[in-house]
């Protein structure tokens, strides 16, 4: 029933079962054995398929004496003169519960095992010369993505007039070979809406549409592109795609799911980087290792917040070492997915099943992150420093006053002594054990702070430990004393005080620790089972790390952006393509390994990758190239004649129509209705969320609170909604926003009834329908048809066709008659007294607005 026991509880069970298991081992041969005659043939015929020159599963090779004696990832397998203690014998004898080598085919016979035992017991002599001659070679792979990037020639095509830039030549060459003509160019309305949604994530306004339609000049399209790419909303749109990959969220995850009040500062960095058009190599280096750059600036350190988006478990009783291990696994796997497009995380427990990534490769990558510490730094935004410095003394005077008044100043030294005593003598005071555990979980670096004399702590350290004591003092005092001290009241006063004074923004970053941490491979991926020691290095199948000096995160980052790395440029341009065409040239944009899809246009992919590098890694330049192409400008209307031949549009014989991502649905609704508050960047906001959703959080929201944002900030774009991992905001969860547990390189696009309910009935969207009605009544001419046309254009960036106007007019009349019979409904739908029309009519416009905001076309980028 259970083949897992040894794996997960190995040391325990090994000791328990081995004495019994070994009873059934075949007895050792007693006559002398000769290696080349007796032993080597067994290794050759039965073992070397998996543990030989071609592959070394679990790091073991049995074709060379030196390697065989060194053993595998879990250590030595041959203990000379002690065959019963040798893992090799235990494995072939099946003495390890549920596992036997070889795992398939015939077992070793008792005689063969006897030979191996005798050889070991006689000293395990591996004579020189019987070793297969071998030189150390880096493994090679013929897999397409691991080959150097070629610079293919731009192909010649017959219909050269269609070609606007080299992209088109590659697309058209393929289409012509299939005897398919490209789709016609989309109409101007569609083009502008497409560009607008793709580049800034917002629909165009009627004025922008009118200007674009009126502009008959030959470069009208290009100027629209330039205008949109210069908009600060460009950074927001592209940052959101990047934040999916960075697994960005505003909370820790896991049980308590504590808020991360400084997470946004990394998001701010990403938005700024896109808006400033930071070259992709620099963008990469700063996120992986910004803190290690010579003279690192605050912004470069903020960039390392990429690594801080990993989940944190503050659950009581969690083993700190285990979760540090999980975090490092996540960091190594994330870098592999995001920049290499490889599922290196699959090699956490064993050599990758399909790709040439060994378990050792994984832990070598992991080793780059093993020396890093989590550090929160002050990262002020422009304008914060002055007010902060002016107010700082007053703030601390007030804070001190409160701490004195509530006896915190008096009680804290004793409390700290108790915590240190608990740390030093675990098990002695069971109540203090729990309290100390809580310090370790809830305060980053809590024990270190406690052991630092108060005078030497930073203000953030001192404040954090004091605030923690106020929050958790009942663990030490008991509930009655806690109530008597009124620390709950104090907590609120301290929070109010903090909110009332200007502060400096902070950021979550990584910093290299001065103390070197050795890294061990973990046998079967189990954090408790150290295997062999490994050192930072890059996967063997990829070009070697060439930089001189110590291998650290910075050398890793520079290797990743190096021109010899065949993966990063391909991976990056493919994801841009995916955002602009609905799917990548490699459809599995997260996996360029052997299990991923093959590129539909390999030459185009390479040409783009080369062009990206030659163009100085300019992201805006690359995006512009793509949107300027004729391929991009094609109509997205279905071509049913191609349904059978090209059901997924891999030939790009048209553009693709696809449902907007979750955040953009909200943004479009807010934008069309005029509610959108367009400020760029800054902290996360909390728009209205039904209480029932908050209640599903752990402890009925003792931990997670949702303080509704008031004022215009509640109408900010979807990307600024606080992402609370355990209670994702409904519109995000319903429309396939990723759960931020791991990098997400492409989103699902499901189509469900819950989405319909969300858009129809969520008060946020009903309010938007009311606003759209009010806006239409205020801004459009008084004629019903004109009003319909105006609202329609606000939503869909085009004028309605006559049949559409008729249908909407029919609906409008029907609404009026329903509402005339339900005057109280009309009041609820339009709560304020309308100016130009009757209440019933105004309410019917709300209904009509709601219809428009739910249309498939509204939710779709065509």
């Amino acid at each position: 029933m259970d083949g897992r026991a040894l794996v997960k509880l190995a040391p325990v069970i090994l000791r328990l079962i081995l004495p019994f298991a070994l009873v059934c081992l075949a007895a050792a041969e007693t006559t002398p054995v000769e290696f080349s005659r007796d032993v080597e043939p067994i290794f050759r015929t039965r073992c070397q398929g998996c543990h030989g020159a071609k592959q070394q599963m679990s790091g073991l090779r049995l074709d060379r004496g030196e390697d065989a004696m060194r053993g595998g990832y879990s250590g030595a397998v041959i203990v000379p003169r002690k065959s019963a203690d040798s893992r090799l014998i235990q494995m072939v004898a099946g003495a390890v519960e549920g596992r036997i080598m070889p795992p398939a085919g015939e077992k070793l016979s008792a005689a063969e095992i006897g030979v191996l035992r005798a050889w070991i017991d006689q000293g395990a002599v591996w004579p020189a010369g019987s070793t297969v001659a071998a030189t150390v070679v880096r493994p090679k792979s013929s897999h397409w993505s691991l080959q150097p990037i070629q610079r293919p020639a731009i192909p010649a095509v017959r219909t050269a007039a269609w070609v606007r830039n080299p992209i088109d030549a590659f697309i058209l060459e393929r289409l012509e070979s299939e005897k398919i003509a490209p789709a016609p160019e989309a109409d101007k309305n569609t083009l502008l809406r497409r560009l607008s949604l793709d580049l800034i994530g917002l629909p165009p306004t009627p004025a922008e549409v009118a200007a674009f339609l009126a502009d008959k000049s030959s470069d009208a399209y290009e100027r629209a592109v330039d205008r949109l790419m210069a908009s600060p909303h460009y950074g927001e749109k592209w940052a959101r795609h990047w934040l999916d990959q960075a697994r960005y969220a505003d909370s820790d995850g896991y049980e308590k799911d504590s808020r991360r009040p400084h997470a946004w500062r990394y998001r701010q960095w990403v938005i700024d980087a896109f808006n400033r058009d930071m070259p992709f190599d620099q963008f990469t280096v700063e996120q992986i290792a910004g803190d290690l750059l010579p003279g690192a600036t605050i912004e470069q350190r903020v960039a390392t917040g990429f690594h801080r988006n990993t989940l944190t478990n503050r659950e009581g009783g969690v083993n700190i070492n285990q979760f540090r291990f999980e975090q490092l696994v996540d960091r190594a796997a994330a870098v592999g997915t995001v920049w290499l497009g490889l599922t290196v995380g699959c090699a956490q427990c064993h050599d990758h099943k399909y790709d040439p990534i060994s378990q050792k490769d994984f832990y070598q990558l992991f080793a780059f992150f093993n020396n890093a510490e989590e550090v929160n730094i002050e990262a002020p935004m422009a304008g914060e420093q002055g007010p902060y410095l002016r107010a700082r003394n007053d703030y601390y005077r007030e804070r001190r006053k409160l701490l004195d008044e509530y006896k915190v100043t008096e009680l804290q030294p004793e409390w700290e002594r108790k915590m240190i005593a608990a740390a030093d003598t675990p098990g002695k005071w069971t109540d203090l054990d729990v309290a100390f555990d809580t310090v370790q979980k809830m305060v980053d670096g809590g024990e270190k702070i406690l052991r630092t004399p108060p005078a030497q702590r930073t203000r953030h350290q001192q404040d954090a430990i004091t605030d923690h004591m106020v929050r958790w003092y009942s663990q030490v005092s008991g509930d009655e004393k806690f109530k008597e001290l009124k620390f709950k009241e104090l907590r609120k006063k301290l929070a109010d005080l903090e909110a009332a004074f200007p502060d400096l923004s902070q950021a979550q970053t990584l910093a290299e620790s001065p103390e070197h941490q050795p890294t061990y491979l973990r046998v079967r991926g189990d954090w408790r089972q150290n295997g062999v020691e490994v050192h930072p290095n890059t996967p063997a199948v990829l070009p070697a790390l060439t930089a001189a000096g110590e291998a650290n995160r910075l050398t890793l980052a520079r290797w990743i952006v190096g021109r010899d790395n065949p993966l990063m440029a391909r991976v990056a341009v493919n994801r841009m393509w995916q955002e602009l065409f609905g799917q990548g040239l490699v459809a599995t944009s997260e996996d360029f390994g052997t299990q991923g899809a093959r590129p539909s246009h390999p030459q185009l992919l390479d040409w783009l990758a080369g062009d990206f590098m030659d163009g100085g890694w300019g992201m805006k330049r690359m995006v512009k190239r793509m949107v300027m192409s004729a391929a991009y400008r094609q109509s997205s209307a279905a071509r049913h004649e191609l349904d059978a031949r090209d059901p997924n549009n891999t030939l790009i014989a048209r553009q693709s129509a696809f449902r907007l991502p979750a955040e953009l649905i909200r943004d479009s609704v807010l934008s069309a209705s005029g509610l959108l508050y367009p400020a760029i960047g800054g902290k996360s906001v909390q728009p209205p969320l039904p209480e029932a959703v908050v209640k599903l959080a752990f402890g009925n929201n003792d931990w997670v609170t949702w303080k509704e944002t008031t004022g215009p900030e509640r109408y900010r774009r979807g990307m600024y909604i606080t992402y609370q991992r355990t209670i994702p905001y409904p519109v995000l969860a319903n429309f396939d926003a990723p759960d931020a547990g791991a990098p997400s390189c492409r989103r699902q696009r499901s189509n469900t009834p819950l989405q319909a309910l969300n858009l129809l009935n969520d008060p946020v969207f009903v309010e938007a329908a009311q606003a759209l009605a009010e806006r239409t009544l205020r801004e459009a001419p008084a004629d019903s048809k004109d009003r319909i046309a105006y609202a329609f254009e606000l939503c869909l960036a085009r004028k309605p066709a006559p049949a559409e106007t008729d249908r909407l007019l029919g609906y409008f009349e029907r609404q009026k008659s329903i509402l005339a019979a339900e005057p109280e409904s009309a009041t609820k739908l339009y709560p304020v007294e309308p100016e130009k029309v009757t209440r019933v009519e105004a309410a019917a416009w709300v209904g009509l607005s709601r219809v428009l905001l739910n249309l498939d076309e509204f939710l779709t980028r065509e």
Partner: protein
Amino acid sequence: MTLAEYAGMQTRRDFFRSCAGGIGTIALSQLMAAESAPAVNPLAAKAAHFPGKAKNVIFLFMAGAPSQMDLFDPKPELMKWNGKSLPPSRTKDLKLAFIKPTATLMGSPRIFKPYGQSGMELSDYIPHVASCADDICLVRSMYSDAFNHHPGESLLMTGSPLSGRPTMGAWACYGLGSEAQNLPGFVVLSSGTGTSAGSNNWSSGFLPSTYQGVPFRSSGEPILYVANPAGVSVETQRASLDAMRDLNQQHYQQTGNQEITSRIAAYELAFRMQASSPGLIDFSKESPATIEMYGINREASRAYGTNCLLARRMVERGVRFVMLAHSSWDDHENLTKHLKTNCDITDQPAAALIKDLKQRGMLDSTLVVWGGEFGRTPMTQMNRPDQADNAGRDHHPNGYSMWLAGGGIRGGQVIGKTDDLGLEVAEEKVHVHDLQATILHAMGLDHKRLTYRHMGRDFRLTDVEGNVVRKMLG
């Protein structure tokens, strides 16, 4: 006209005929075709891998980890050790969350006696469930790898201690679709204080969100956003949907984008959900005996009893997987008092569910599972040494109990044993992955074949482990 009347009066085909003013015949036929095409409704019922008895699952999820040696697994030997510490030789390999290995042992103050023909020994705190002893299969040899709540719950529900994988209910709907016409395939009901893993317990992970668990409430608005907004009557909602459908249809004729027909179908299903969900929570047609049986008239068991009755009603309507999360059983302190409270809340309704399903002939096709993410230690956790009744127990993944009933499970049997002190499983170990494999098997799904390709790998509920526990099945 009420929404329910609308939905009741018209079949979908009639509905399209009578409202088809704006749609041409081609469009209508496309719509009807779309309705039957599997691509349009990913929740359409699908064939199992092999015939399975369990058509539906009700998972009574006891979040926080109930204490097995006070409910299911009597340990007379433990009484002899009461107040003493174990020799280090027996504790050196234990993983403990809060307490230290020197913590003293605590015998259970509960009284166990045999129940039913099977003579299953159960605690005096669960007399109702005990009266179903012959219908339940008690597993005393469960073990888990995770000893903290979030990872433990995640392992139980998704097969992995890390966030981001699909949950059991999502896998079931992915594998089998759903028979429910007007409800989601996977529904979640909650009571108590909220679970550690939150939405990770019902997430669809990397599966399409179609398969996600939908939280459902027993009062007010049963499903989030299922009620019309203020001022939107049924007539308005219907007229609005008609207009959307016609306009979507016109646009479909322009663009030929198949997703539009899916969108129309999704909006119609949403409308039917609006019509049927209020009826689901209306118990007026249930007999007083049924209400009484579930403990809905008793303050302590009202909320949980309501959820259990709702679960039965959902299964009647074809919902594939219902999860009832009750939290929390995480009794690090005041174990005796808290355990009594939780048993008062859950014991009677859980037993009523089994009896009610049985009397309606639904137990054979409905698998009921009861249990939490791990168990509790034989050792005492004493956070307030000055208060004797403060004693609790710490997390214990090495040996704990769960039970299953119905859906092809053979009742009246006990599987596995823990050692004399309940420290480790002594016989017939059942890992969480084995339980998952068995649940899927009962549903006619081979846990090794139910896979989904993601990030270059075929994922499954049981990760790379799991063996079906044949002995559980009838």
